């Protein structure tokens, strides 16, 4: 991958990838580092990117992994340091609220659950779209989302001191 290709990718997708990293990491400086991580992967695996049908989705999948790796390495802390204020996607208020909690929960779930959670809560895909994207059955996705919702409810209750 040439420097021109990298510059083009940054010019076209850099902002969106950075926003996604900020949404997951809740830390501006770390999100900038994660963006650099993503572009290192792009530099190394440029051919896969070139062959990807959707460049943005490819970069998002890489960004997700980079961010979750960073979250896994991050020492425990009270909460996110820098509040990230972003415009909400239309009609996505509840999911956006949930996505805050989802990000907190994702450290403790397996890869498949994490991928479904990201697609549903962060990408706001429908279950049909997730099934099409992952190749997993609707039943699997529904079951896992149900479990995740239970965990979200419990987490929300812990935060506000209620019984779920």
């Amino acid at each position, binding site marked *: 991958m040439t*420097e021109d290709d*990298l*510059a083009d990718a*940054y*010019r*076209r*997708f*850099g*902002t*969106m990838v*950075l*926003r996604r990293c900020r949404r997951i990491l809740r830390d501006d400086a770390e999100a900038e580092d994660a963006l*650099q991580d993503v*572009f*290192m992967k792009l*530099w190394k695996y440029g051919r896969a990117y070139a062959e990807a049908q*959707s*460049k*943005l*989705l490819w970069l*998002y999948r890489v960004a997700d992994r980079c961010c979750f790796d960073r979250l896994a390495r991050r020492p425990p802390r009270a909460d996110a340091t820098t509040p990230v204020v972003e*415009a*909400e*996607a*239309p*009609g*996505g208020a509840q999911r956006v609220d949930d996505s805050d909690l989802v990000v907190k929960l994702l450290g403790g779930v397996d890869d498949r659950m994490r991928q479904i959670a990201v697609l549903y809560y*962060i*990408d*706001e*895909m*429908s279950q049909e*779209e997730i099934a099409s994207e992952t190749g997993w059955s609707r039943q699997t996705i529904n079951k896992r989302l149900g479990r995740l919702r239970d965990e979200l409810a419990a987490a929300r209750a812990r935060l506000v001191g209620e019984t779920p």
Partner: protein
Amino acid sequence: MTEPHHPSRLELERLVTDDLRAAARDTLDEHVSSCAPCGAYMAELRAAHAERLARVPPSVFLDRHRQRRRRWLHRAILGWTGGVVTAVAATVLLFRLPHRADQIRFKGAGISVYRKRGDQVQVMTASDRVRSGDALRVVLTLGGPARLWVAAVDASGRIDPLVPGGLIELAAGEQPLPESAVVESPCVDMWLIAWPAVLPAEAEVSLRRMLPSLRGGAASFPTSALVQSVRCE
């Protein structure tokens, strides 16, 4: 009145980065042009995009990327160099240190001694004793083919090869030595030794050096040797 179906955040982000196929893009464009919330979200994305490129233009971002790449390459080269040095060191150690085959002891290897007294033949256990006239048949169990020096060493310091010349090549598995040894009179406690890939002269010199400790009962044979003690009644 039903809530209008809005495209997902991802779809709008793909739209703003021109990452959609023409048909999907046209459909979304049509929706966005008539939907105030989606239009506002698209405007916000475009503003963020413009602000980002103004604040961190591609040239600046690529400078940081180059620095990161240099650091990564530096670490990678260090890692490769370390790996090569380790591999070379391991190879040298592998071929230099354990090269002496007398250091190698086969896994599962051992010596069994069959005692024939009159018409009775039995495998000797630790509590069994021999006496003059007993015939001893030595069976070696080997994990792999080996060239061995095999001998009986008694407490007086006498060394008797168990095969002509002392050396024998054996295949893996249970291998009886071709000849039996007869316990002479008077009977003297002894050790039966099978020592891989050692020259007879070298083995005899080593064993003679060990004699004082053998006599004192504090026998300490080379770890690579298979040893079975045989005690007299």
